[in-house]
């Protein structure tokens, strides 16, 4: 695929540039199987997620079977084979947040955006994830949207919070 239409969100790289950056990364890690997880991390940072073409590229360049690469990707929940939305909402479900209604927040967001945890809205604006603890226990329940943390979130205020990101 020699199209140059897809661009990296963060730095505006073209698809070809993303692949050559990935190739360089693999080279930096000496294409060693023991470095596969780091390489996948970098790949996800470059592409935002790990679609099949990226996994095939890695499998080809590292001379590893596709099933092995995808096995590692599917083992770790931090890897995603689905594209991420423009914004990632992370709802904290650590003990403090959970006790103070974290799961109600998850339910409300699911309802508002009509997606499940791990999914992305059709307009590619939001992805929804849950987290173990984001370190704001004193101000539970908390959520993070991209790098901004919202504390003591009231489920009824969620619509307003999300509206800031439309």
């Amino acid at each position, binding site marked *: 695929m020699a199209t140059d239409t897809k661009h990296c969100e963060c730095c505006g790289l073209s698809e070809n540039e993303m692949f050559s950056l990935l190739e360089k990364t693999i080279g930096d890690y000496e294409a060693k199987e023991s470095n596969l997880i780091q390489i996948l991390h970098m790949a996800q940072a470059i592409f935002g997620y790990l679609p099949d073409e990226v996994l095939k590229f890695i499998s*080809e360049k590292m001379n590893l079977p*596709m*099933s092995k690469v995808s096995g590692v990707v599917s*083992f770790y929940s931090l890897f995603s084979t689905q594209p991420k939305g423009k914004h990632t909402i992370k709802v904290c479900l650590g003990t403090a947040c959970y006790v103070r209604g974290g799961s109600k927040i998850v339910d409300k967001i699911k309802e508002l955006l009509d997606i499940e945890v791990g999914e992305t809205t059709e307009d590619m604006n939001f992805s929804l994830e849950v987290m173990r603890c984001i370190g704001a226990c004193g101000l539970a329940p908390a959520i993070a949207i991209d790098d901004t943390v919202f504390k003591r979130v009231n489920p009824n205020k969620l619509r307003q919070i999300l509206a800031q990101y439309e």
Partner: protein
Amino acid sequence: MVNLTINGKAVTVEKGTTILEAAKKLNIYIPTLCYLEEVHKIGSCRICVAEVEGAKTLQATCVTPVSEGMVVKTNTARVREARKIMYELVLSDHPKDCLSCGRNQNCELQKIGEIIQADESSFEGEKSKEFVDDSSPSVVRDSAKCILCRRCVTVCNEIQGVGILNTQERGFKASINAGSDILLGNAACTNCGQCTVVCPVNALHEKDSTQDVWAALADPSKTVVVQTAPAIRAALGEEFGYPAGTLVTGQMATALRDMGFDYVFDTNFTADLTIIEEGTEFLNRIVEMMYQKGVITAEKVKELGMHIGVNATFPMITSCSPGWIKYIEHYYAGQLDNVSSCKSPHMMLGALAKSYFANNIDVDPKDMYVVSIMPCTAKKYEITRPEMVNNGVKNVDAVLTTRELAKMIKEAGIEFAELEDGGFDNPLGISTGAADIFGTTGGVMEAALRTVYEIVTGRELPFEGLHVTPIVGLDRIKTAAITIEDAREEWSFLNGVTVNIAVTSGLVGAGILLEEIKKGESPYLFIEVMGCPGGCINGGGQPRPKEANTREKRMKALYREDEGKILRKSHENPDITKIYKDFLGKPLGHVSHELLHTTYTTRSKY
């Protein structure tokens, strides 16, 4: 040496021995599930646990090495309870429809139930996966039956070097597949079926063809022809309780006739034919190379009955193993010119049955149904290749594995052990000893050398008993060198030429030799590759081994069959001479080219 006691009995074993192996020496049986001798040892199922004095936790005996003074107990209440819990855990996520399961009475999970009495109450649990992948013409994967032992992963990755199967996801969602929703039928799977041999349950098995064959046998408009590969006769008996290495050639022929096949032929006949075609192809490549080098003239080439302008890529590699062919098409397509153009022997036989033989008995080839009994799951795929069609009819209509044939013999109510010996039909039934050894690694090369060497020098191959000793045996890669001296007058230009040969079985070995070729560093002129480790004797369709050293015993059986024959060189087969005279003309001639040779396809890795 290390001394230990197991259940109070003393035993002395070599350092590095596992507790499980030591127990075997004392005839103490420990149930195992994931462990597979010589293949797979990861200690994941923990069915094999035992108590070791001084150790807090129970030890998995299949991976724990013995140590001096060790005191092991394999049958305490604690051990039995732990085993039972592990077993029940596996069963809780397993559909226990044994009575309608393909592995009923032949299943390792079922078998350990003899030893471990599970409680019915703990049987039921949520089922994690229910998906049957029957997209491949060779191998079916039924994930509901999978117990995640990962034997198939080891075989596919480490022994075959292909890596189609790996664990995806984890925990309750874990399953074994090709990843990224790729189905076996679309994967770069070689169809070798080695995974189906090691699977302890019905999670991986061959695609069933028995129903198609029963239907053909019941159809009065069909003339049903069957052929059996060399390796079947050395393994089929195991399915009927004979020890590994028992030859059952005669009983097999009788059983096939009793099942209702109209003609019982022997793939060995076309194994001999392959030697003539492939041997000639090899010589022609050599002649072409000599011509290109200016050693011989065009007239000389003609005088030898050879052609100019043929493919002279070296090393030439054998082509009888369709799993190997699919492997090179996917992974080393740049090296396809190295592969001989000969079809595999059973495809040749199918092509001749539906032309030469159909004509002899005055049957329309469209009304003939050819069944191949093969040690191989890849042959099920091979018959679907578009190249394997002549005059509008498929060369072969169905392939049954050795295991499927045994199942059908049982279904037909035939008491195999009681059968009298029968023989094969003519004209596609006579073979020489050279054909018998096609079923083992090294055999095709030896058979080819027996003929080619004699053509060139006029003398027998200079090895005791005609066996090329350096290439006999189960090592991954075997090599030999033969220098031509004192050649016949017309071949004297080959005097002093050393023919380096290599033999490999299992696809990891093939990969190693192909890398050399790719780099231009291969010292060989001729290579034999068989896709399965050990060759067809250990093919993906063979009975699952029940005793130690099964491969070796089957191999020896084939050499015995060879040695017992009066004719041991393919070119001495009288029916081969006859078929060239009556029908084919000459080796690599026009008719051969049409019926007996093929082409290959470049395929992707993904």
